């Protein structure tokens, strides 16, 4: 199960584990195609295509896939009650996680802070 965005998708927990073990900076947006999620995918697509964030791997993941349990069960996401769950991994560990919509300024601010 994957989302119909223009981002690269993560479809299994194994893929996600492999990615965060291989890449220094990973941003994963786990959501649906709703009004709070789509703007975040849009920001990620723009940042990815800008070429200014080549040090970051941008991915999405379908929240409704059972494989997204990896994200859902992260301690950092336990208080979250709004999609998407956006998680920033630095060297394999969670550096930051946000719930619900974020705009470009908020996303770039977090990237600047944690990556």
């Amino acid at each position, binding site marked *: 199960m994957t989302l119909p965005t223009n981002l690269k998708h993560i479809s299994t927990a194994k893929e996600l584990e492999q990615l965060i073990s291989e890449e220094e900076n990973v941003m994963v947006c786990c959501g649906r195609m709703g009004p709070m999620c789509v703007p975040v995918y849009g920001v990620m697509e723009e940042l990815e295509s800008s070429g200014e964030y080549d040090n970051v791997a941008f991915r999405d993941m379908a929240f409704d896939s059972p494989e997204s349990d990896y994200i859902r069960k992260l301690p950092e996401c336990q*208080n979250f*009650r*709004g999609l998407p769950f956006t998680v920033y991994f630095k060297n394999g560990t969670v550096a930051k996680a946000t719930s619900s919509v974020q705009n470009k300024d908020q996303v770039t601010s977090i990237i600047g802070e944690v990556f």
Partner: protein
Amino acid sequence: MKEYDVIVIGGGPAGLTAGIYLARARKRVLIADQGTVGGQVILTHAVANYPGLPELSGYQLASTMKKQAESFGCEILSNATITGVTLEGAQKRLVTSDETYQARAAIIAVGGEPRKLGLESEARLRGRGISYCATCDGDFFTDEDIVVVGGGNSALEEAVSLTEYARKITVVHQFDHFQGYAHAIAAARENSKISFMMESTIEDFEGEESLTAVRVKSKVDGTVTTVPATGAFIFIGYVPSTQPYAGMVKTNQAGEIISDESMATNVPGIFAAGDARQKRFRQITTAVSDGTIAALSALEYIGA
């Protein structure tokens, strides 16, 4: 300062269509959008009534329109921070946090956005109890008590859909009657999980890490009632995103830009298209039509 023939503000179907027509006429076009390019159509799960295309997601349709506009040479600026505009005079200007753009004509196609209550606690608890999408977030509130704010079709229909998850739902509405269709009102009234607080407004949302209660104020006697709730879903309609242009171009009481049949506004060289303008029907096809007409009118205006 960067020079263009026409600046299109807003990258939904209206703005992208305008851009396609202008770029095809070999004009230098900038499409600037403060959010994700595509407008509200990107949130549509399936578009089945766009002529000539089989059913596809709104996201796919908007992505195709964007690629089409870029293929003809449109420059597209998404997630732009627009800090100022000048609509009067021979040169129209758009100022962002990074650059100033200038053109002889401009098309305002900024669309609309969900209305918010505007409370500090609303922003602080978004994603931690406050939501604007029942489909997205309803299942986080299984067997819990929630509040739905609003009294139109969206609020009533979403309240009913949320009963699949929630234990109890309180609908808070500012008037003594609903604005929804009779069938939506009946469905909500007949649902035993839903109760109503009419002629009431939201005073505040309580909670630090997550929502714990909603303070509801009666418009009749001013009393404030604290309703325990872990979720609050807000459906209080859409507003045109025209606030930055208030006073610069003629709008109606709802903030919709008034334009004529050629999409011309009261300001020479400024055209309007899509959901931001005063009109009766709001569809992807009508937005595309508006964008086409606005582009052709803008071409005529600049003497192309």
